[in-house]
Structures are given as C-alpha cells and as structure tokens.
C-alpha cells in the first residue's frame, strides 16, 4: 500500500513528522512546500506556494497541475494530510476524483473553531480526524477524535 503525505511547511509539517511512526511500515512519499525546515527531505516532492492574486484570492492553478502530475505518476492508494488548505485542498479533490482514499487530520492549533481546510475537505474525506473533542460538533457526524500528536 502506498501513502502520499501532504502538508505545508512549518507547524503542519511538524505534526506530520510526529505521526510518521504510524506510516513507516508502508511505502510513502511526502508532498510539501520547500523551506529551510523541509529541504533535507529525500522522498519528497516540493510544490511552490503561489500566494494570492491582487484581489486576495488564493492562487491554486499550478498546485492543481502539480497534484495531477504527481498523483498520476505515483498512483498512491491513500492521501494523508495535516493541512494547510493551500496544499491539502487541491491534492484531496484531485485525489478523490482519481479514486484515492483521503485521510484528513485537523491541526492541533484549532480547539473551538473549525479550519478552512477542514471545512473544504470534510465532504471528500474517507477518514476525518480532529485533535480536540470540542471540534467534533463543529464539523459533523463524520468527524472523529482518535487522540493528539503530542
């Protein structure tokens, strides 16, 4: 079974690294943004963060194109993501349309309010986890609490 681990750099990446023990026994690769904290990775694809256009809209076209390219050539069975939305949303939607299972793990930093990534990915997630029980009611019946990264 092949896993595709998707996360932005910084806190979302740190949470993914904490969870790596759960994924290690399977074949896996990482997709993330390049930064000082991620450039040492070997089995990783680096996606460039496009930022926002002049009207404040998130630019995702290149990320969507990279997700199609990476997912078609790697053919993972499961996408696992810890966010953020900038990278997780395109991968999850493209992945879902290719028949790949989606596991979403909401960030530890959200306690009482849902994240944008969470709200957008909820409909396509096969497994949807939050890290605080107080968030279960914010998302819906599919959300589960299985513990925290710390």
């Amino acid at each position, binding site marked *: *079974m092949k*896993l595709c681990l998707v996360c932005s*750099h*910084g*806190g*979302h*990446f*740190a*949470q993914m690294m*904490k*969870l790596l*023990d*759960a*994924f290690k*026994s*399977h074949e896996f690769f990482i997709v993330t943004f390049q*930064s*000082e*904290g*991620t*450039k*040492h990775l070997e089995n990783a694809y680096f996606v460039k963060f496009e930022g926002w256009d002049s009207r404040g809209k998130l630019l995702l076209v290149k990320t969507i194109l990279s997700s199609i390219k990476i997912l078609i050539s790697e053919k993972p*069975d*499961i996408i696992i993501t810890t966010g953020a939305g900038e990278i997780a949303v395109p991968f999850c939607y493209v992945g879902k349309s290719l028949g790949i*299972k989606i*596991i979403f*793990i909401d*960030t*530890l*930093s*959200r*306690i*009482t*309010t849902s994240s944008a990534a969470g709200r957008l990915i909820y409909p396509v997630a096969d*497994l949807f*986890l939050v*890290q*605080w029980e107080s968030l279960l009611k914010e998302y819906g019946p599919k959300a589960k609490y*299985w*513990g*925290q*990264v*710390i």
Partner: protein
Amino acid sequence: MIFVTIGMMYGFDRLIRKMDEIAGMIEEEVIMQIGVGTYKPENGKYFEFLSKKDMDNFYNSARIIVCHSGVGSIISALDYNKPIVVVPRLHSYGEVIDDHQIEIAKKLEDKGKIHVVNNLDKLENVINNINGEYNNFNKKNELMNNGEYNNFYKKNELIDNLREYLDTLNIKK
C-alpha cells in the same frame, strides 16, 4: 543559552525586540531565529531561518526555549524536555489572523507542558524564575520516566489508531 524561535511564516518583532532587550541585561547568551521580521537584534546572535539540523542543535544546547505559540515550534521543542516559554502572537498587533495562539497556549499550559507569557513585561521575570524551577521539572520527568510517563509520551493514541486503521485497509486490499 536561551534559544528564541518564532517559526517560518511571519516576523514577530515585538518578541524579538523584548528578547534583545533582555539579552542586553543578562550574562547568558541569547540566540534568536527571527524569520522575516524587520527588527535586527543587537545583543545576541540571530538567524532569519535555520535548517532542521541547526534547529535541532540549538534546541539541544539551549537551557530554555522561548517561542511563539505555533504548534510546529512547540511540538518540536517538547522533544527536548526543557522549559519552554511561549509568547502567543496577538491579533490586535497584526501578528496573526486571529487569537487561536492564545487558546492553544492556554490548553498546553493547563496540561503542564509550557509556561505562557501573554504580557511581555513579565517575560524577564518568568525566564529568571525558571532557574529554580528547572530542577523540579527535571526531577518530575525522571520520576515519570520510570512509570506513567512512558505511557503518556511514548505511546501515542493517535499514532496507534492510525496504524491500526491503515493495517485494516491493507488487509482488505
């Protein structure tokens, strides 16, 4: 050495300026990772960004870690069993999009994992007071290492549940 880190995303001049001021008053070395902040420290060594290897080295050699309330910085710092002083970024200063950093800091402080400083005037005091407390902190960890601590830290419910879920899928496949 006191290691200060404010994460990869945005500057946090308010904390860096305060830590630089403190660095000018104490003998202990202060090393700061300042991100894209505009304030450049005068009383200590500083770096904009650090590689994972350098971060690990500084975490490892620090006596106290001071950081913003970003989950990445905190969970990385927790690996080193050192006192962690967390200063949440505030929405009112334009340092973050909302006040979720205050919320997560409070939760982790309630669990006894970090010291939180919301008012920067108190930062120096908190850092100075950690001296005495640090021994207790270590002793507590030592005690916990022999018993419950293992269950709490080494066994992680989320990791176990995810592993089991993936194994079930693998069998079905």
